């Protein structure tokens, strides 16, 4: 029934989480005004965001040592959860019923895939 290691699945989930964090940093940077074009790309926020993104790619490689390939994109769907939480908390976006149902569907699908797959 279970053909994956939970520890490796958690590594991938952590990787997805930190890439969501890097997205927030990029958006924060995009909302700021900069004096020059170069500063738009070469500022601490953007550089750190890409460093995190780079780490996330390495984490996914480590994770694939213990999980099947097909599980990767399924677990990556958790990014919608993080994006929603960040959107509401940091960028004060609205959270409608449809989004909540969508997130519950994503979580249910991941559980079914992982437990019954």
């Amino acid at each position: 029934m279970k053909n994956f290691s939970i520890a490796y699945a958690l590594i991938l989930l952590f990787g997805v989480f930190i890439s969501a964090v890097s997205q927030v940093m990029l958006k924060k940077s995009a909302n700021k005004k900069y004096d020059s074009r170069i500063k738009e790309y070469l500022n601490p926020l953007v550089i750190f965001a890409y460093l995190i993104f780079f780490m996330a790619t390495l984490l996914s490689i480590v994770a694939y040592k213990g999980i099947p390939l097909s599980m990767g994109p399924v677990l990556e769907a958790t990014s919608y959860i993080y994006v929603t939480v960040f959107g509401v908390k940091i960028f004060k976006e609205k959270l409608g019923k449809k989004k909540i149902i969508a997130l519950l569907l994503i979580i249910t699908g991941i559980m079914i895939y992982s437990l019954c797959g």
Partner: protein
Amino acid sequence: MYQSILLLNIPQRTEKQTDFESRGFALKTVYEKIKLFILLHLMLMIYSFSGVCSKKAAGTTFLSKEFCLYYGMIIFLLGFYAIGWQQIIKKLPLTTAFSNKAVTIVWGLVWGLIFFQETITVGKIIGVIIVISGVVLYSYADGNEEPKL
């Protein structure tokens, strides 16, 4: 493929048009949309290949020649995707683009089967269908925008 994404341009409707011309235009627009849709899916299929490279890299020694080759491919595919996505969302509604992105989950199943002899079970298929419906619902949750394709 790369070039065609960058160069693709949908003609804009002009003021003076005869019936015949506008019908021709509508046909052309539908044709362009189908083309864009195919391009989006080709791009997503190629992008989903980065997972194959990640899993291949997982089986190699860290920083070995093979590892670097696979890692280079991952970075190339991510870059290709970033540019392609930017071009696509200029011409397709974001909701359409995002909901179609869920197809990468299906590609994960297909590539897993082809390259790593992974099994596809009923449980996996049901889980994937539910996750995809969640992603599609999420994409359309914000506005009243109807799917354009």
